[in-house]
């Protein structure tokens, strides 16, 4: 589904990714772990096309398409979803309006008919309910006044409504208490653990992986993948730390 080959990327003038190669197949869940500053968030931003993140070398294909040639909204329409580490507040725009516009823009891009207001609300209610989110919150402006945990939960509701093929979830576990962590973990499994979907979990800690069991764990350090293993690798990292591993 996703092939990343020798990816180099700069933020400003500073090289962050330095030859990253990674391949994800449909039906797989991958976790990327690594110390602070390894380039984990940069990878998420580069894949989703954030301005200011410049690819200097390498390629990324997504279902056979050149991902890097697409605009951010085209990547979303092609089925890529980025769960933000810090979801952005947009005063004045309600969640409902935002999501409906987003979903219908993606459907339009794919040549599908837009959802009516009723159809959309049905999907929204379903997903919000599954993640224990009050419909009233969906009527409020996007992320404005939400707690850290509520923002992350909102990201999952969005993922459920948009139903992407590939989700890149950047530190989705940060800021969550244990109950919220379970809810979010269950959400990821329910929405994304399917034979035609894939997930790239970007995380610093092992704890989310107790709920979402990865098929592969990669260590990202110094802008490239330094080690790959199974779910056990995450436990090893948790026990020994990244320093030990680097030595």
């Amino acid at each position: 589904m996703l092939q990343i080959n020798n990816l180099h990327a700069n933020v400003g003038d500073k090289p962050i990714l330095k030859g990253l190669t990674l391949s994800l197949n449909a039906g797989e869940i991958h976790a990327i772990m690594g110390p602070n500053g390894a380039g984990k968030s940069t990878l998420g931003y580069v894949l989703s096309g954030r301005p200011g993140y410049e690819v200097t070398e390498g390629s990324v294909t997504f279902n056979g398409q050149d991902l890097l040639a697409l605009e951010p909204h085209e990547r979303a329409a092609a089925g890529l979803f980025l769960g933000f580490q810090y979801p952005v507040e947009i005063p004045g725009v309600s969640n409902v309006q935002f999501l409906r516009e987003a979903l219908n823009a993606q459907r339009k891009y794919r040549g599908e008919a837009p959802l009516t207001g009723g159809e959309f609300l049905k999907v929204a209610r379903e997903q919000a309910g599954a993640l224990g989110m009050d419909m009233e919150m969906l009527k409020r402006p996007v992320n404005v006044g939400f707690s850290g945990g509520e923002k992350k939960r909102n990201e999952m509701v969005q993922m459920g409504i948009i139903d992407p093929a590939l989700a890149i979830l950047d530190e989705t576990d940060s800021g969550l208490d244990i109950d919220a962590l379970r809810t979010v973990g269950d959400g990821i499994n329910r929405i994304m653990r399917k034979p035609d979907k894939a997930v790239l979990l970007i995380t610093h800690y092992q704890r989310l992986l107790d709920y979402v069991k990865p098929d592969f764990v990669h260590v990202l350090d110094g802008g490239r993948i330094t080690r790959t293993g199974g779910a056990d690798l995450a436990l090893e990292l948790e026990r020994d730390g990244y320093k030990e591993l680097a030595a």
Partner: protein
Amino acid sequence: MTVLPTRHDEAWRYSDIDALARAWPLPAPESIIVPAGGTFARTIIQDSGTIHQLDIAIGKGATAAIHVLNTGGDYGRVELNVTLHEGADFKLGAVQIGGGTQTLEVITTVTHAEPGATSSQIVRSVLAGTATGTYLGKVAVARDAQQTDSVQSVKAMLLDRSATANAKPELEIYADDVKCAHGCAIGELDAMGLFYLQARGITPAEAKKLMLQAFVAGVFEGAADEAMLIEAALAKLGDLV
């Protein structure tokens, strides 16, 4: 005023004087007196390049609310001269949206002449092309107009280089027990917000429009014809983006 003003006149310093000359001399300002305890509301839609001048005296305990959508013509100007008596309240919500070579301006002089009056002005400008949008907003608090409470929020957004936003949020205060808070911000759309919208599949133009819509939203809150004003504002925004 009988002589055509020049840009040396403070109230006309950013005006399109040539356009003004064509409309000169102006008729006397419309005079509105809101009696004690009364209420007054008016919506001004300036969509054809005209100059609106209103003098509003708000009596004791009375309220007045003005909503302005300033969008049309080469030169459009809405000028309000408001005097508040004891315990009166004045609210202004104004949006101006300009493109091309338009010059749009809203000028307010709000005088708290007596104690205990409250006023608020919320003004949002969106400017594209080489348009000029100006807000000159003066709040004057007379000697002894204690317990005045005045807030002003002024924001402008430029969509193109060479569009111009001017603002003059002015305070003239002669009483000590007053609360006056003015805020003014001029900038561009939040880049991270735009990216977030696009990462959810919204096209750049739609994302921009959505953000601008949010930018002007709320200004028309409480207007009798709120829905119509929002729709008209969105239509004009759609033309610019």
